[in-house]
């Protein structure tokens, strides 16, 4: 059972980080379809950074920058030039997939992807708390980025709910004209939100490479960015809701892995569908009373 719960947390961590980033972007009024590309860029940058420097911390820093770079592309095209959010997101996902695969092959020269094997980051037990029976192993014995994710949930909740900047960001997603009238610049707010979203999602990608797999392979996020997008919808655009959704998705995947190892004849494909179907059901159930930020996806007026 503990194994199962631990697997759930492990699978949910990269999703949750990406979803937290996505909340920043969507609450500011920009659809976060580019999460997949941001995660992938982060995963790549983290691997290469940690490999080249021998320092996982450098890898994390580069993951933030790599994800932010993709975020910047979205910010320029979708916010500054007012292109369709969704299509821009698709475009950066394609760009990121191509660019990471290409760079992976030219780093070593010779056209073959370079072989990198990193030792995955070890768990850091929190002194004192980790000794609590059961709970200690489950909650307080994790690799560093898992703690960062939990901390991020708290921080983002406080930021959105309790700070002036958070209020401005939410207002930009609901009514950019009001933000403009109050003296802030919705264009800048949205661009910053999308770039931060990229950085955080990039760190989510780093979880995969630095903490779990130890290497980078082409397109290794394999839809996790879209899963994070589904999670933040299911979580109704709140950090805790999204994190809970990620845990549910993680549990579904962990459950599926267990079933496979026991040879239970339940179709894994049907279980894998669950997150997307749940997200659709939540959206359909919300209907008009949707918590979707009112001005999401709408380009800013020219005067701004």
């Amino acid at each position, binding site marked *: 059972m503990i194994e199962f719960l631990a697997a759930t947390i492990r699978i949910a961590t990269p999703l949750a980080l990406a979803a937290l980033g996505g909340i920043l972007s969507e609450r500011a009024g920009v*659809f976060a*379809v580019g999460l997949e590309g941001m995660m992938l860029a982060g995963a790549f940058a983290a691997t290469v950074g940690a490999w080249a420097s021998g320092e996982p911390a450098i890898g994390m820093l580069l993951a933030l920058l790599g994800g932010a770079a993709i975020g910047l*592309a979205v910010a*320029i*095209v979708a916010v500054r*030039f*007012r*292109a*369709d959010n*969704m*299509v*821009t997101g*698709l*475009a*950066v*996902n*394609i*760009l*990121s*997939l*191509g*660019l990471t*695969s*290409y760079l992976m*092959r*030219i780093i070593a*020269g*010779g*056209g073959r992807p370079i072989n990198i094997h990193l030792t995955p980051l070890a768990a850091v037990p929190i002194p004192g708390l980790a000794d609590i029976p059961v709970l200690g192993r489950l909650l307080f014995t994790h690799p560093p980025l898992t703690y960062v994710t939990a901390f991020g949930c708290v921080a983002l909740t406080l930021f959105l709910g309790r700070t002036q900047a958070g209020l401005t960001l939410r207002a930009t997603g609901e009514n950019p004209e009001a933000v403009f009238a109050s003296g802030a610049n919705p264009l800048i707010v949205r661009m910053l939100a999308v770039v931060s979203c990229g950085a955080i999602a990039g760190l989510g990608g780093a979880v995969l490479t630095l903490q779990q797999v130890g290497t980078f392979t*082409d397109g290794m996020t394999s*839809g996790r960015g*879209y899963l994070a*997008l*589904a999670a933040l*919808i299911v979580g109704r655009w709140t950090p805790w809701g999204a994190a809970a959704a990620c845990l549910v998705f993680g549990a579904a995947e962990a459950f599926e892995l267990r079933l496979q190892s026991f040879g239970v004849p339940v*179709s894994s*494909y*049907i279980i*894998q*569908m669950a997150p*997307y*179907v749940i*997200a*659709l059901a939540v*959206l*359909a*159930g919300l*209907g*008009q009373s*949707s918590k*979707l930020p009112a001005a999401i*996806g709408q380009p800013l007026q020219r005067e701004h």
Partner: protein
Amino acid sequence: MSEAAPTLSLAAMLQARRVRLKPSGLAGRILLALLLSMICAAALIALSGHDPLAAFAAIARGAAGSEHQIGASLNRSTPYLIAGVGVALCFRGGVINIGAEGQIAVGGAGAAATALVFSAAPAPVAIVAALLGGALAGAAWAGVATAIHLGRRVHEVLATLLLNFVALLLVQQLLAGPLGQFGAGFLQSPLMPRSTWLPRLPGFDAHPGFLIALVAAAVCSFVLWRTPFGFALRVAGSSRLAAAYAGFSLARLTWGAMLAAGALAGLAGGIEVLGVHRRLIEGFSLGFGFKAVTVALLGAMEPLAVVPAALFVGLLESGSLAMQRQIGVPSALVTVIEGLTMLFVLVATVARK
């Protein structure tokens, strides 16, 4: 409001007409975007220590150096063109349908299932039936998205995007169950009956799918520019308010565009299955739907202009494999070019009208 609305609607209608009268500026901007992404690609090639001009030459030779290679490039372009035309139709009407990825996969499965049922029928009947089966399956999948979008007011992008993943898993489930070949080791259907294979065009190593695609583009262009439905769609795309004021039913327009796009995407999937693989394979259409969006954008949502756009992407992709073999520049470069082109074209078509 009652005074302002008629002028608003008239202006939108005039604008819907004018787009066609002055396409030259738009075409120029798109070509500029294309040039920019090529310059970026050249920089990336240089970064890998190779000569960009030699790499581009290798792409050109690999894409169109022989009849065999031209055939392969045409086959590549076909699904992008057919599905891309449908996407263009939707985008023109302001319906952001990014569900082609799933609709193609479901269409392929529909065509494969129909082909297996019609295995005893004579070739022309079996082929037509299988392709119709694919188109129907694609349209049905688009219909699910439309029903969720209109019925429950879910944003169409989220509905189509999320259904893509469900569709891919559904096809995998079908391949693991009723459509699968037992004991194949990986997810694929048995070989399709010979009577449903698309024939080869004489002289070229291509199936007639590209001809079907050209017809589809011409028909869509006609529908968009010469029918009341197309006119209403263009008005709705320019201004929902104007379309509603003019009495066009937005729901009916959305249904029409989505079903047409779904049927086209399904047809693309069917052609890929019957013409290229001759069986349904897991992931046979991976990324096709997103490339359909790429070519629709590159073609400025103009069905006839999607033809050169799809040809460009198809030639680029089939040429890049030759580039990788001969010069050693990774073929992933093409994916970079596609992504960059999309971004530049987005900026070019939105910025400064």
